[in-house]
């Protein structure tokens, strides 16, 4: 075998050597990661490789997810709209949503909001207008809205926001959404029927109003994503399918 190798041209030998060296290094890297992974129980140092994210509603935990002890740890109720106990049209309800980095590495984050109507059985009502559900979004303080994927003609219920700076470990973003209200104009979407009859010499007129949005539920669904900051453009493209540009540390949409 060695005799055959010796007979190879030097260029081929050099390529082989380079390939073997690179392969060896990548293997060593994996072995090193695996070693750290198993050793974290004793040292806790592997935390630097953990990613995690937390969605907070009005300063309280809504849901969090974090890679821990070899598995994803999920905590929280996974609920939003928790403060609306008595609903009124046109009233603004506080709904401050933030993202907190509870992982061990800094990350870029984004938030996707879905607003829509459902019936009492939880079925989406695609023919009811989500624009009556009005959100106060924050497109300043580090958040930018992706116009191509927000309230588009084919997906009027969806809004996508990106946080432009990396979120350091333990840090929390500013609120990407501040409040929610339902436009009272939704009450004018109705039909009225009028009937008149005579009862005991009295003329009785009955007007019945049937509201299109009566007995419906307005729904809010929020997804937050985090991705590593190392090699961020490729990582974001791979994880989120989105082309972005990172200038320095600042993210912008292509």
């Amino acid at each position, binding site marked *: 075998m060695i005799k055959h190798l010796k007979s*190879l041209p030097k260029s*081929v030998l050099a*390529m*082989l050597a*380079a*390939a073997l060296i*690179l*392969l060896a290094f*990548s293997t060593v890297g*994996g072995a090193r990661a695996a070693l750290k992974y198993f050793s974290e129980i004793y040292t806790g140092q592997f935390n630097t490789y953990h*990613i995690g*994210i937390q969605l907070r509603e009005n300063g309280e935990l809504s849901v*969090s*997810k974090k*890679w821990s002890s070899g598995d994803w740890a*999920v905590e*929280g109720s*996974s609920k939003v709209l*928790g403060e609306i106990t008595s*609903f*009124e*049209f046109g*009233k603004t309800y506080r709904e401050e949503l933030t993202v907190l980095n509870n992982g061990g590495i800094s990350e870029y984050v984004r938030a996707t909001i879905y607003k829509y109507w459902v019936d009492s059985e939880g079925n989406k009502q695609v023919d009811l207008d989500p624009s009556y559900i009005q959100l106060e979004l924050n497109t300043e303080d580090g958040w930018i809205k992706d116009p191509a994927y927000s309230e588009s003609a084919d997906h009027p219920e969806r809004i996508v926001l990106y946080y432009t700076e990396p979120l350091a470990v333990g840090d929390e973003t500013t609120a990407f959404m501040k409040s929610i209200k*339902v436009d009272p*104009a*939704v*009450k*004018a979407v*109705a039909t*009225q*029927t*009028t009937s008149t009859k005579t009862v005991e*010499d*009295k*003329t*009785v*007129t*009955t*007007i019945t*109003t049937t*509201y299109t949005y*009566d*007995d419906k*539920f*307005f729904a*809010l*669904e*929020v*997804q*937050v*994503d*985090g*991705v*590593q900051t190392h*090699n961020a453009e*490729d*990582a974001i493209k*791979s*994880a*989120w399918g989105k082309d972005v540009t990172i200038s320095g540390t600042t993210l912008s949409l292509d």
Partner: protein
Amino acid sequence: MKRRNLILAVAAVCLLLCASVKSAMAYFSVSIRSEGHTEVKFSEHTTIEEEFDSWTKQLTVAYEGDDNGQVYVRAKGFAPEGMTLTYSGEKWSDGGDGYWYYDGYLGNSESIKTTTVLNVQISDVPADAKAGDSFNVVVIYETTPVQYDSDGNIIPAASADWSTGVKTND
């Protein structure tokens, strides 16, 4: 020999590519989702009873709905030429546009029946009118869901847009 060199070179490139693919798959990412929903309920039912006595039409507007089903009410009467209609009723006022408006709205607490009365008195009846003569005094009444300003406050009935999306089938 040349063929073997080529195979070795391709193998080397494949090894390099495999190493790259491995790193490309190793991005750290995480995703979570929360959701919530709140019911919108605002059914309502309005009944108007009209009683005639002593040249006065008494309109009783009864409303049954929930907290979110408030409605404005307004009424307008038509009488033969020469006759006069005089309106009176607690919390009713002239809107200046031919309609009399109930000040505020009906339906302000959950599942409660509320009523209001508007009297329409007919005067200047022709002196030669006798028993058996007939003439028409018609009162029309309308309701429409309450409307809000940009701060979420309910606006006065007379200022509301009565031609909003409500379709009336009568």
